[in-house]
């Protein structure tokens, strides 16, 4: 047989065997190509926002890293699987360089094919992706289909470099192995089956303890137990360390330890599900511990970031309402009047809210734990005072004070006690006020009421007295249009007036946040999707590998009278574990990560997080189902 024939034969056989590798390659090319097409899209590259283009460029580097690692891994798996064949070629007298040449040529064909097909698919996808992209970042531009030559050259370049690196790897692999090695390479990767050792039990327990400890610390992170920046940093680093090491030990020992406990109880009597799941869970998970840890950690990061940016996106309006409690906020009565007049001229009905305020230094140290070591001087903190008249629900006596609208991020770090005495100084005397509690309502915008501290509400009489002592008083004017349908129009008028920047529009703030978060979300989702698909493929490849090694077992079981359906049910169970364990651990990690700090990003936790998690789970399950389908074929063929 000539070399040409040999290559063709091999390709034919391998295309059938490795169609998922091909699929993954095509898919990654498509993803990459679409992404760089974005970068060169005129609508984006022409925008003066250099920020956007830079962000996309940085992301594409991440994309290359994920794709590169994945392709290395996949190639590694395949060359190992083919090592017997390579050994055979050598045995019949082919030189190593000849074999390397054949493999390289084969790979070159596969890569070239993938780049062409992938670019084509990417091109078809790009309009769709561009549309989504414009939609989430709120650029009003129609996405036109265009083929970017630049994007194509970049794709070609990136994948050629990856191809060369893969070839170097193959070369090193071939150079290092002797023929004997090649024949035994598949069997050395999986470790020998033996009884569980004390060391493993210890590792198993430690893994679970580490993870739980990490979760525990994360839930305490913003509870006020860590109160200076250094401590907070230390806590975060130790959470990361605990969880990652814990995850590794979990795969290395805990999984086996737990299954062993369950197994012990069965006293040797296992049903088909257990028989099939055992080997893969007890013995293989351990040797894949490193890979699984990486997959779990990165999925957790991806899910976590996606959830957080979605939370932010989802709560953009709520957040804007907190920072600017009225549709339009003015710090100057004259400007407010001008705007009011414009609204009237355009017959837009509105209501006006006028609040006078005084900024004073208050002593609130009795409301805050004494061991707090913040930069803030709590006996002399700068707060905004308003009269009870501005808050319809409050009525206070002269010696009382109430707080309202405490920024929840600050509240999480610096919670207030339920009772205490607050001192306010007026004309040289310090007046003690009994603290009556905290309300949720936001009265002033954050520009007026700085530092994230709540606004203090006092009795009208007291307020007048304090105001008299001040050289100047300020007032805040909030304007709310009464018909929500006129809000956009009012916003345009607001812009047209060209007022000073200190006056704010709630709608503008919400839109900006939505745009920013939309962009982050899009990018994280893109990276997350790429990662999801590549890690799903890796797990699938692993399963393909496993099925090869477990064929003899399936044969025995079928001889013993297990029907195809029995086995398939067992396999399905096994896949639930194989794909489910990394998924569930990843979801748990991201849940605790999100839970510990979500309030920095928005006001709603559950809905956005659950949507993200469900989507991720569904996409992941597709790979589980694919592998069950593959096993179905294997089971059918063993007898």
């Amino acid at each position, binding site marked *: 047989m000539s070399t040409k024939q040999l290559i063709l034969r091999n390709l034919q056989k391998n295309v059938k065997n490795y169609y998922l590798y091909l699929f993954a390659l095509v898919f990654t090319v498509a993803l990459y190509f679409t992404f760089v097409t974005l970068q060169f899209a005129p609508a984006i590259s022409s925008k003066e926002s250099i920020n956007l283009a830079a962000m996309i460029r940085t992301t594409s580097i991440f994309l290359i890293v994920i794709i590169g690692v994945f392709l290395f891994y996949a190639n590694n798996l395949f060359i190992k699987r083919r090592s017997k064949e390579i050994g055979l070629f050598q045995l019949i007298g082919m030189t190593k360089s000849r074999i390397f040449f054949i493999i390289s040529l084969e790979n070159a064909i596969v890569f070239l094919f993938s780049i062409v097909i992938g670019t084509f698919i990417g091109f078809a996808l790009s309009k769709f992706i561009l549309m989504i992209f414009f939609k989430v970042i709120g650029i009003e531009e129609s996405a036109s289909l265009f083929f970017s030559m630049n994007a194509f050259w970049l794709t070609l370049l990136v994948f050629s470099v990856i191809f060369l690196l893969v070839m170097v790897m193959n070369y090193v692999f071939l150079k290092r192995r002797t023929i004997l090695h090649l024949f035994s390479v598949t069997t050395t990767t999986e470790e020998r089956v033996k009884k569980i050792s004390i060391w493993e039990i210890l590792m198993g327990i430690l893994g679970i303890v580490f993870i739980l400890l990490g979760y525990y610390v994360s839930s305490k992170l913003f509870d006020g137990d860590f109160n200076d920046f250094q401590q907070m940093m230390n806590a975060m680093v130790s959470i990361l360390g605990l969880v990652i090491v814990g995850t590794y030990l979990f795969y290395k020992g805990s999984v086996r330890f737990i299954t062993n406990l369950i197994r012990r109880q069965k006293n040797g009597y296992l049903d*088909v599900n257990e028989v099939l799941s055992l080997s893969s869970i007890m013995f293989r998970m351990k040797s894949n511990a490193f890979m699984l840890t990486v997959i779990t950690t990165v999925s957790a990061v991806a899910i976590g970031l996606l959830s957080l940016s979605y939370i932010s996106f989802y709560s953009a309006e709520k957040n804007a309402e907190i920072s600017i409690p009225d549709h339009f906020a003015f710090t100057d009565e004259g400007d407010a009047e001008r705007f009011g007049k414009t609204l009237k001229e355009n017959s837009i009905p509105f209501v006006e809210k006028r609040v006078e305020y005084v900024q004073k230094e208050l002593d609130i140290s009795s409301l805050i734990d004494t061991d707090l070591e913040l930069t803030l001087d709590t006996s002399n903190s700068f707060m905004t005072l308003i009269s009870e008249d501005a808050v319809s629900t409050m009525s206070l006596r002269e010696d009382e004070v109430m707080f309202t609208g405490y920024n929840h991020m600050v509240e999480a770090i610096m919670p207030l006690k339920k009772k205490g005495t607050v001192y306010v100084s007026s004309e040289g005397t310090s007046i003690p006020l009994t603290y009556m509690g905290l309300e949720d309502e936001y009265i002033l915008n954050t520009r007026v009421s700085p530092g994230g501290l709540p606004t203090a509400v006092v009795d009208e009489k007291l307020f007048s007295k304090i105001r008299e002592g001040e050289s100047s008083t300020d007032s805040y004017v909030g304007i709310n249009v009464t018909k929500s349908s006129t809000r956009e129009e009012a916003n345009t008028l607001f812009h047209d007036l060209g007022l000073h920047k200190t006056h704010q529009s709630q709608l503008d703030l919400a839109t900006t946040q939505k745009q920013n978060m939309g962009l982050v979300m899009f990018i994280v989702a893109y990276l997350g999707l790429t990662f999801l698909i590549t890690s799903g493929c890796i797990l699938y490849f692993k399963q393909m590998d496993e099925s090869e090694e477990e064929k003899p077992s399936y044969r025995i079981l079928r001889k013993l009278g297990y029907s195809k359906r029995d086995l398939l049910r067992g396999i399905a169970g096994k896949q639930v574990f194989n794909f489910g364990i990394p998924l569930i651990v990843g979801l748990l990690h991201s849940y605790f990560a999100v839970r510990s700090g979500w309030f920095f990003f928005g006001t709603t936790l559950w809905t956005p997080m659950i949507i993200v998690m469900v989507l991720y789970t569904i996409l992941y399950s597709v790979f589980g189902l694919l592998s069950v389908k593959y096993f179905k074929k294997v089971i059918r063929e063993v007898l």
Partner: protein
Amino acid sequence: MIVLEATKLHKSYGNKFTKHEVLKGIDLRIEQGEFVSIMGASGSGKTTLLNVLSSIDRISQGSIKVQGREISKLKEKELASYRKHELGFIFQEYNLLDTLTVKENILLPLSIKKVSKKEANEKFHEVARELDIESISESYPNEISGGQKQRTSAARAFIHDPSIIFADEPTGALDSKSASDLLTKLSDMNEKRKATIMMVTHDPVTASFSSRVIFIKDGSIYTQLNKGEQTRQAFLKDIMKTQGVLGGVSYEY
């Protein structure tokens, strides 16, 4: 009582053009409690015969009845159920799941039949005692010797009291001491449990443990030998003589 009755078995491989007939009309009857050996030259079709009788492979023509029931026409699901209830297997190698302990391996046939846990345990202790493997019941296959492995597969074949046990060269991978140990145990089990055993072997000594030897040549039955009242030694001599005639090989003894 007749346990297994095969008539005019034909089996061929390949398609119309490359047809290769391996079994050419074999008739066979096996009585309850018999211990039958099948011998013949390499490539004569022994494994094929065993495979079709044990429903792992389909026949091309003919009929196979087990306890009066025709099995060659059964569907895949019914076949699985037939194997699970009526058959036991012992093979030359690769017959234990190496991720399960000895005990778990042995209990597999009971687990598919959904026998109660208590009954399963009792049965396990019974066969394990008979085959002398109680002490290794918690070990993994790669921690025990070849002979112990084969006794483990024997235990698994016997535990659910199947109508027939099929064995393909069960002693092939063993040294002669372990082989005769295993065979002694097998023939003990055969007597005690009245289990029917059908075994393929190359080795006359192995065959001499059985009660009947069937010789196959080119896919047909060449001749049969019954042990009858003879001693094992005498039976062995007969077997060797026949084998010599059959394969043109003569043993010196």
